[in-house]
């Protein structure tokens, strides 16, 4: 029995428009723009975030497309050096702060954390809306900077270039990132307080779904790291305006002090980007292998370990920066230690499939893509943690490939997997699984085609942030640019079939995947107060024992159950 096509052909005689109107839910509570822009419902704020970060994903993606166009030829002939520098800076700033960091926490996290712990909303709904407006505020500053002429400092803003030598609109972008930082802090604060105080009866700490564990650890990082970035950017901006500061070597300051403060935030920030993805993958693996997660407690401790040790390793960004040799050795050891919990999680995901009943619906394909690409990304991180190799590989395309494998191959795949997994719950509609699976595979191939050649370029020694390069690097660059075209097209697909499903998709039952978890015990889409009757958790999560027949997913989706 080939997995039935989700979108069964419309039974003849029933015109498509006669599809039953959606039942009463949070979506129908108010349909005016005002009701959306002044909502304090965590589910609506999740959708506001989803829309805004998608817009920024494609702006950042556009910048990347121009860069790949430029890099197809050794000579810098498509765009000028100045424009290329502004392109990669904008690509970095937008993708890091306006897409990756909010991507899963602010969308799936906002929507699902209250549902998964059986609460009616987050602890501070008004703060949650304020968080989105801070995001919009930060975005406005960044857009102004782009329109006014862009910034050419790189998303890392290293002093003394960003303070004394760059004559572009650095202050606008610093203001934008400063403001959007507080959006992260408010979201993190909201999640931590909610998970501590508002769990439904029976929802003990070690019965929390791993997605909630991941949101908790991510929020802890956001709350503990972002304030350091906020003050560092203020010091940088003041130094740029006043010409005096603690990073200026001519005044006895130290540019490395900026790098320490910046990376103290920015390395934990990369764990903010990957931990929620790990949470999503755990949920999807359990559901589509019909197995409980292998070693639930180990996976939970591993999430916390990654978050904590993640704060101790930032020095591996500075092995050749003039940092002392002893600091390099210390940070290298700690960086190897932080790789252990990530490795354990990959092995535990693999073991989850053991004796399972695995189905390959779209979410599962994205999750498998995550595990595969995150394994390669994580392994190449070991090359960069090894001091002697980092000397050769840092600041080359090896580093670019490494973090894109984890950010794009990992986090974005898991984000799409999560969107596909919870789409029926969020929108109350089903989508075309055939198209979704095709998109997942296309993205996987396009991604590898784009970024694997960059590993080889990095080993050969091609430095990053070059718009012109020696001719011997051209073949691999052309391959990478070709791959980027496939990737760009691949990302348009979900927009199309998911968009289509919004209006024409069949209504989704409460639990289309027959998954465990409190969010599946309410209707799809859920009412404004989430639960008509307060749920209670009576057994450990991922108790897929009784639903092990595999037929049950299909029946659940047909709504015959």
């Amino acid at each position, binding site marked *: *029995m080939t997995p039935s096509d989700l979108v069964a052909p419309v039974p003849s005689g029933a015109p498509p428009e006669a599809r039953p109107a959606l039942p009463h839910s949070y979506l129908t509570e108010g349909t005016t723009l005002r009701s959306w822009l002044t909502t304090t419902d965590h589910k609506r704020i999740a959708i506001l975030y989803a829309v805004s970060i998608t817009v920024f994903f494609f702006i950042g993606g556009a910048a990347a497309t121009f860069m790949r166009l430029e890099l197809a030829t050794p000579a810098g002939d498509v765009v000028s*050096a*100045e424009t290329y*520098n502004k392109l990669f800076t904008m690509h970095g700033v937008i993708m890091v702060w306006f897409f990756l960091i909010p991507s899963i926490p602010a969308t799936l996290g906002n929507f699902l954390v209250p549902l998964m712990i059986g609460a009616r909303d987050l602890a501070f709904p008004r703060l949650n809306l304020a968080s989105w407006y801070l995001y919009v505020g930060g975005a406005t500053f960044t857009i102004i900077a782009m329109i006014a002429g862009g910034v*050419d400092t*790189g998303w890392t803003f*290293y002093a*003394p*270039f960003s303070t004394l030598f760059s004559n572009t609109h650095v202050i606008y972008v610093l203001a934008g990132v400063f403001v959007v930082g507080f959006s992260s802090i408010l979201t993190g604060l909201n999640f931590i307080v909610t998970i501590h105080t508002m769990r439904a009866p029976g929802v003990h700490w070690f019965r929390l779904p791993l997605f909630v564990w991941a949101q908790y650890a991510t929020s802890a990082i956001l709350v503990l790291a972002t304030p350091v970035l906020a003050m560092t950017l203020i010091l940088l901006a003041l130094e740029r305006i006043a010409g005096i500061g603690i990073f200026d*070597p*001519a005044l*006895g300051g130290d540019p490395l002090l900026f790098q320490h403060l910046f990376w103290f935030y920015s390395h934990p920030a990369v764990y903010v980007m990957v931990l929620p993805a790990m949470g999503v993958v755990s949920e999807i693996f359990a559901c589509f*292998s*019909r*197995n409980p997660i*292998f070693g639930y407690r*180990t996976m939970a401790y591993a999430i916390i370990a990654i978050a904590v040790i993640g704060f101790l390793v930032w020095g591996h960004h500075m092995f*050749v920066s*003039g940092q002392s*040799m002893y600091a390099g050795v210390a940070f*290298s050891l700690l960086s*190897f230690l932080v*790789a*252990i919990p990530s*490795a*354990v999680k990959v*092995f*535990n995901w693999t*073991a989850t499939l*053991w*004796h*399972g*009943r*695995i*189905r390959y619906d779209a979410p599962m394909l994205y999750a*498998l893509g995550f*595990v*595969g690409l995150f*394994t390669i990304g994580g392994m*190449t991180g*070991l*090359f960069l*943690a*090894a*001091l*002697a*190799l980092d*000397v*050769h590989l*840092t600041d080359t395309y090896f580093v670019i490939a490494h973090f894109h494998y984890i950010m794009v191959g990992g986090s974005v795949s898991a984000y799409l997997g999560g969107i596909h997994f919870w789409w029926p719950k969020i929108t109350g509609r089903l989508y075309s699984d055939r198209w979704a699976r095709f998109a997942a595979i296309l993205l996987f191939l396009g991604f590898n085609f784009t970024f694997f050649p960059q590993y080889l370029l990095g080993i*050969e*020694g091609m*430095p990053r*942030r*070059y718009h*012109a*390069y*020696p001719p011997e690097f051209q073949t691999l660059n052309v391959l990478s640019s070709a791959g980027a075209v496939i990737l760009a097209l691949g990302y348009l697909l979900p927009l199309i079939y998911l968009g289509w499903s919004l209006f024409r998709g069949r209504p989704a039952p409460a639990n289309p995947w027959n998954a465990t978890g409190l969010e599946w015990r309410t209707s799809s889409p859920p009412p404004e107060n989430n639960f008509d009757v307060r749920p209670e958790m009576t057994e450990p999560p991922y*108790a897929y*024992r009784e639903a092990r027949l595999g037929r049950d997913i299909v029946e659940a989706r047909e709504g015959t159950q």
Partner: protein
Amino acid sequence: MTLLPLPPSASTMAPRVDALFYAITATTVAVAIAVFVALIYFGVRYRAGNPVPRHEDIAEAQRRARIRVELAWTLIPLFLFLCAFAWAARLYVDRGTPPAGAMAIDVVAKQWMWEFQHADGRREINELHVPRGQPVNLVMTSQDVIHSLFVPAFRVKQDVLPGRYTDLWFTATEAGRYHLFCAEYCGTDHAGMGSGDVVVMEPAEFERWLASGARAPSAAMRGEALFRALGCSGCHGANAAVHAPNLAGLYGKPVPLSDGSTTVADERYLHDSILQPHKEIAAGYAPIMPSFAGRIGEDDVFDLIAYIRSLAPATERPR
């Protein structure tokens, strides 16, 4: 000979780094293959609808297997990581300690070019000639922002910071012309700075090249000219009227400072005393020296330091 895609191995460090690279590649590829094989094997064998025997109570089966299996895939990676860490750290320490007697070449990085200055005063722009087989130590500083000297063929890279000297040493083993890149983003023409070359020549040929260059004044001679032109001799000269530290034989000696501590008169101290004179004031002297920051370049500072090093220890009574 190196397996592609590693660049040619042209320094004593390169084969050692490559050996570590191959070892880590082999281990990681093996583990990655093991994970992918396991994923595919489980994925195919336990797919829904495939009638193979399965544990009825999977949670119990997992619990039994969990302890041993998780211990294994935690401790084994930990052991492998520690080995890789130790091996890499050893190489990193060797990279960080230039061998004694290495040929010193001064390097000034500025927005968007490299300026090299051999001990005998020969200057080169964006091109560095070095002898094969002899350790070379680059003493580097930046005129403006942070740059980074990167020679892929030697597997060496070191950021070049303004206001500080950083070292980068290598011993070339293969004659030839190799890329010299700037690896730390430094502004508009960062890529342009990457068109530099390192030319490794046989020692005899290098000597001929060095001698054949236009009779450039040595760094010390240029330094002496600057010493007079900038008016340093007015205070620090042998018969100067002003009470200023005597520079003869100063290089390498400990210098008592006005705050009671003492420091060694090395390149850093001389560089900072020229550009930021009030940072460390010699004991018993008034803070009257003007700063030359902005008036002279880092290459001039190298010349002045070369001149001060060449001054023989003072014979007459120190002032």
